[in-house]
């Protein structure tokens, strides 16, 4: 059973800029000629950063599937998330090369530094921490990405300081 919680009875807002409207537009404007449940889910997540109920519902409307069918597809892939992401993303590569060259200690160090049990969002909502199977920069292993910017030859210290910089900037922004 999924543990995703969703605020029940969120207002059914279809006004421009609402989640439902943004999802609808993203699904309609898919460039690919073949529109499937999966492609529509990807388009919605690209737009919104996650898949709220409204997005699942819109995909079901566009593809003629039941919401439960769409959910069956969406819940199958760990790459889909159903809660809003944190404000910043930090990914660590745990592909073979990075693993051999020391990704594990960095990964574990960061997990405990961020106060997490593994992948996930920090409590303050500033950072989404994710494992990545390959960031595609093996020559620079161990690699990480900070807000989608790649960084190579990482060490734990370097990673922690980068993370702290992001957090500091985040605090400044929020203030």
């Amino acid at each position: 059973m999924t543990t995703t919680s969703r605020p029940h009875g969120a207002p059914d807002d279809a006004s421009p800029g609402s989640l439902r409207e943004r999802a609808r537009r993203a699904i309609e404007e898919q460039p690919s000629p073949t529109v499937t449940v999966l492609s529509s889910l990807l388009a919605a997540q690209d737009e919104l950063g996650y898949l709220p109920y409204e997005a699942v519902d819109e995909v079901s409307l566009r593809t003629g599937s039941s919401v439960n069918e769409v959910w069956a597809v969406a819940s199958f892939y760990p790459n889909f998330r159903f809660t809003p992401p944190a404000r910043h993303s930090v990914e660590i590569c745990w592909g073979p090369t990075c693993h051999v060259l020391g990704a594990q200690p960095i990964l574990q160090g960061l997990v405990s530094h961020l106060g997490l049990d593994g992948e996930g969002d920090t409590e303050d909502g500033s950072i989404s921490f994710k494992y990545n199977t390959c960031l595609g920069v093996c020559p620079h292993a161990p690699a990480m990405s900070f807000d989608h910017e790649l960084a190579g030859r990482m060490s734990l210290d370097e990673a922690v300081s980068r993370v702290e910089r992001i957090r500091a900037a985040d605090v400044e922004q929020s203030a």
Partner: protein
Amino acid sequence: MADEITITIDGREVTTEPGKMVVQAANDAGIYIPYLCYHPGMKPYGACRMCVVEIEGQRGTPASCTLPVRDGMVVNTQGGDAVQVRNTTLDLLLSEHPHGCLTCHRIDLCGPQDICLRHVDVVDRCVTCPKNERCELKDTTRFHTQELVSPLTYQYRNLQVETKDPFYDRDYNLCIVCARCTRACDELRGDVAIGMTERAGQVLVGTVMGDSLLESGCEFCGACIDVCPVGALTETAYKWERPARVEQSVCAECPVGCTMTYEVNHWERVVRAVPELNAPANMGQACFKGKFGFDYVNDKRRIRKPLVRRDGELQEASWEEAIAAAAEGLAPHRGSAFALMASPRNTNEELYAAQKFTRVVMGSNSVDVASNDRPGIVEGLQDVFGYFAGTMTVWELADSAAVMVVSANLTEEQNVVGVPVKRAVRAGTQQLIVVDSREVELTRYASLWLRPYPGTDPVLLGGILRCIVDNGLADMEFVNERAEGWDELVACLAPFTLDAVAAETGVPASSIEQAARLYATSGPAALLFGGDSSIGGTRRTLSRIVAALAVATGNVGKPGAGVMPLYQGANTQGALDVGVWPPALPGHNLTQESPEVREALSALWGVPVPLEHGGGNRHMFDHAREGRIKAMLMLGDHVHYEDGTLGDVLGGLDALDFLVATSAFPSEITERANVVFPSEVWAEKTGTYTNVERRVQPLLKVAKNKRVDSRSDLDVLCAVAQAMGAQGFAWDGPPQVLDEIAQAVPEYAGISWERLLRERLDIVTTPSDEPQPTQVMYTGNVLTGLQWPCAPEGASGDGQLFVDRFRHGKARLQPVAWHSRPEQDARFPLMLAHGRVLIEPGRKPNVTVVGKRNRVEREERLVLNPADAAAAKLSEGDAASVTTADGTERRGVVALSDAVPAGVVSLTTLFGELAVEVDSSDRPDPMNHIARLNAVPVRIEPVQCSGGT
């Protein structure tokens, strides 16, 4: 391709058909191959790997449920490799399934009712599994004599048991992810209210985001429960009860007449209903009413003894006293001062006796059945075709290329009729046209949805007919050969021009044309109609046009084509057949127009059949108030008297001199009666019901409520008749009555009780000590009933009526009138079209927990045509309320839409709300008290904001 091929299974030669899967071929031949995810009737899936076998000349161990048979195939079900694969599969399944029930050392010591001595963990105990002793996983493990090397080392998933939804309990800790339930919901029912979620080790059955079934589109049909092999899905009611025996009978909730297997426990209580897998009327399907609505048999509140009014008070009496009192009280009221109202749950035999009692003993024609409040929808069919009946069978609808459903709420009223339609639409083989001012479940599946102004269906169908004629789409060869009155009919269609019809109904002309094309040109087309939104006299016109449409397009008497009237009541068809209707005699003959039939019946009954008009249904109560009817006999469950469709029932009863009622429960009717007989309910009766496809099905006694000293209405009628000195009521039980029906009703000729018990499908199943799905275990000798007019014994009956000729040779097409919209009361200028759907895409309801139960909560939308909104000074988003003439008020938020015709307020609520209401009702039989969704006049007003609460 050969029609028959031979394969060898375990050294035995088996003849089977190409296309069958090996597992089914083996099971059909009585050779058992274990399986857990396979279920007959569903597509091969191949998930559980329990049915693996070895095939000579083929590598590996293929799953026999996905392996089609091949001529000359040699199958070995007991090969070492296959057995080992199965054992490993079982090991893996048990590694996540609580299985104390298999390993506890007291398994053979405990009796079935013993209290658990707590030798194992709570979640592990056999007594904490509702499917204990009928679990396919447990049986399969025992069948395999699995060595449980590491007992109780399994991973308990610790998921919350879902018990907040109506009717169902879901405990996914017991789920083995065979996907039978999701496939049943998808393939069999077309709902997809549940699906597989997550993946790999976490895969489970669930709804979108773990929502309640109330908002996921569930229709609570119970199909998933019926196929679940373990205790994951169970009925909440009688969850822990075990069957002492099972009995086959027919459901008494609606005219589909689903054959059900009822489980009865040691205390003679009916505890479970399982739809019969191979029954021709329902093919293993049921609905929320049939699956969960049987509990009233067992109810404690039933009337236990006959009651007689003495000194103004109802007092208990003996049967003899009560019968004498009834006979004495009725005797002075012979003639037109007497009326009898039967119940739709009465059997054919009771109904026949009721009309015979009324006509022979009392000399009155005022006899009707309470559910027959819309006789118009069959009158028109009799006018044209000759019978008060539909022409087709339910499951033929799966082969129809087009289906038009006119003002009928199938999902709630004749649920299983909708199943083949939904399946065919989802398979892409059928075009569905829905004509309904309400939004109902089927509109979601419709290729075309026409929303006429309520009550204008006859005009709309007339427009469609004219459009078919004008565009040359009519099948003139069929019309010329099989029908008369065509030219007169076409002449009547003069006012039904496209523009006039569009203006009258509010349906765009283009949609009318499209509907005409779809219906006339798609192929075999069926027309289902309920007349829900029509008003009184216009229903006869509606059914005449329906019949004319079918004749005009040649859609009668062909497979997949025909018309089906959708009335309420389990045995309304039987009532029409045996003459429980004032103007008609047994055998679909009008009393006043068929002197020869009247004579024949007078001879059969030995008393002249009265000729004068009788009052039917609501007229009865009007006549009672006017003093023209002084005594009444009311049979069975009194359920149609509350919703106003029969007029002022209680007022009428108050005016009577003498009232006799038979009833299972005390009601406002029994309170007014002079004599009350405790009556048997459907599960206690023997007799026959006739369903909407004219199938006469035997009703067998399932159980008897031991608290109650009840008798069938047949016994009561016969006893009272005999006490009044009448002849011809000395039947020796329902079979003898059925014999007399076969004499009086020509269509029933050839039907006898003995033959009904002989007409069965002998389903070969593997021996019952082998683990099987409940539905498979219960099937075997399926009583199929007989469709009238019935073929001689041995010949296969034809579901289609009128293949070669209509009852009177040619169809007698009838002139049709244009019925304008009725004048609206100026105080209630709009019509409220209240619909109900399973799920409303694009909107999310709120589900809150009240007490321990889920409830739907949401702000309803009152959808208006912009013109009406402007007139009422309302705009999008305003809070408003609609009020009916009787003061009922509903609130909602205004939404504007051009799709709603002017003059209509559309309100669509969720089925989940109804499910909760029914589930939480404390009425003995809530299923029978579900209000119909009829269009009613309303006024709409803005709701003033009180400025914060």
